[in-house]
């Protein structure tokens, strides 16, 4: 019957569940603007998204982009200009806007492919067992996923069985929190030492943190919802196939 599947909607590998999903291209472009690479994570393009996030952190640090953003919002435009490293900033901007455009374009293309995949309705995978891992479709609670990524970015991804991204995110969150001294700052704030709680902060590393924590929370939340959707689709396919030859007569 199904000699060849042209476009599967989803695939399970040891790294987790990779899937197609129709999305609003503006939302994806917006996440790319918040942190280059986040839009691509939401599109399940994990390798290019990871490379983009590495690029973002490296070039931002070399060009002092974050400090410049912070001073601009404070109205200290002279400081914003002087801190910026023009060699890095111009190239950074081009790649930044390219990333936004590319994630928008990819979403539009993936939406069309996703529609075709849904129409093709190829059997979904629900379970794999591998020498090193077991991965399966499972119903998830999106609120729990979001809550854990809010507590510590990466844990929501772990809950969704996306362990590669989970440990990558956890690694960066450790690094950001140590380099920015954010937890020390909260500690001094709680003790009432306002002066010290502000002076200890490193604004460059601190400014990465809101984007990362919100992005991780959003990713965990939508991924959990999509796993539920795939779970339900797969179960319907299975039930329809297994019980198609029913002899039950409701009206005798």
């Amino acid at each position, binding site marked *: 019957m199904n000699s060849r599947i042209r476009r599967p909607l989803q695939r399970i590998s040891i790294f987790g569940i990779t899937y197609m999903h129709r999305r609003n291209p503006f*939302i994806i472009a*917006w*996440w790319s603007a*918040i942190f280059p690479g986040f839009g691509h994570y939401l599109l399940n393009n994990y390798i290019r998204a990871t490379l983009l996030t590495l690029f973002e952190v490296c070039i931002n640090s070399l060009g002092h982009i974050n400090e410049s*953003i*912070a*001073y*601009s*919002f*404070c*109205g*200290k435009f002279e400081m914003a200009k002087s801190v910026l490293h023009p060699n890095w900033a111009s190239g950074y901007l081009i790649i930044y806007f390219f990333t936004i455009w590319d994630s928008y374009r990819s979403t539009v293309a993936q939406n069309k492919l996703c529609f075709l995949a*849904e129409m093709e*309705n190829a059997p979904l995978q629900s379970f794999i067992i591998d020498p090193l891992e077991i991965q399966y479709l*499972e*119903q998830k609670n*999106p609120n729990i996923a*979001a809550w854990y990524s809010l507590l510590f970015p990466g844990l929501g991804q772990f809950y969704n069985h996306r362990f590669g991204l989970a440990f990558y995110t956890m690694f960066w969150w450790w690094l950001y929190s140590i380099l920015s001294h*954010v937890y020390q*700052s*909260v500690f001094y*704030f709680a003790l009432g030492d*306002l002066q010290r*709680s*502000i002076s200890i*902060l490193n*604004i460059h590393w*601190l*400014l990465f943190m*809101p*984007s990362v*924590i*919100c*992005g991780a*929370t*959003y990713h965990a*939340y*939508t991924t959990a*919802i999509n796993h539920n*959707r795939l*779970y*339900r*689709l797969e*179960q*319907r*396919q*299975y*039930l*329809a196939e*297994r*019980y198609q*030859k*029913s*002899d*039950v*007569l*409701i*009206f*005798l």
Partner: protein
Amino acid sequence: MLIIGAFEHSIELEEALSVLENRGILRKSIMVVPMDTDSTKSTQYISRSWDRYNKAIEVGMAVAPAGAVIGMSIGLVLKWGPVFWALILAFAGFAIGLGIYLFVNKSYNRHLPKKLPEVTVIVQCSEDRSMMVMETMRKYHALTVGHINEARNE
């Protein structure tokens, strides 16, 4: 006898069906009907009652980081410092995004209960097995179970 059970999509539904088959209910005596809340094809969208709130929360989460970055920046010159202002504006951004989405989409057609009968299972069996079938359905989280005696129609 006809035993009718309403289930949510769940692993328990498959457990119930496996147990029934294992206890000798023939596969051809089981009928499974996927249920939908609207007329789109069941393989495409399966809408749930909290879809609208999910979208609103997603919009709120998208607005929050913008608020946080602005709050963190202006916090450099304000009294309480960057961390505190980032948190305040992140929550404010979340609430604004959520509120605007719910306000714009308030004309959503109907209010659905949180638990929906998504799959109906109909089992045809002899009267002496009906208790076992009903108990199995209830044990594996059927929302409601009903039965009808076919003989009365003959």
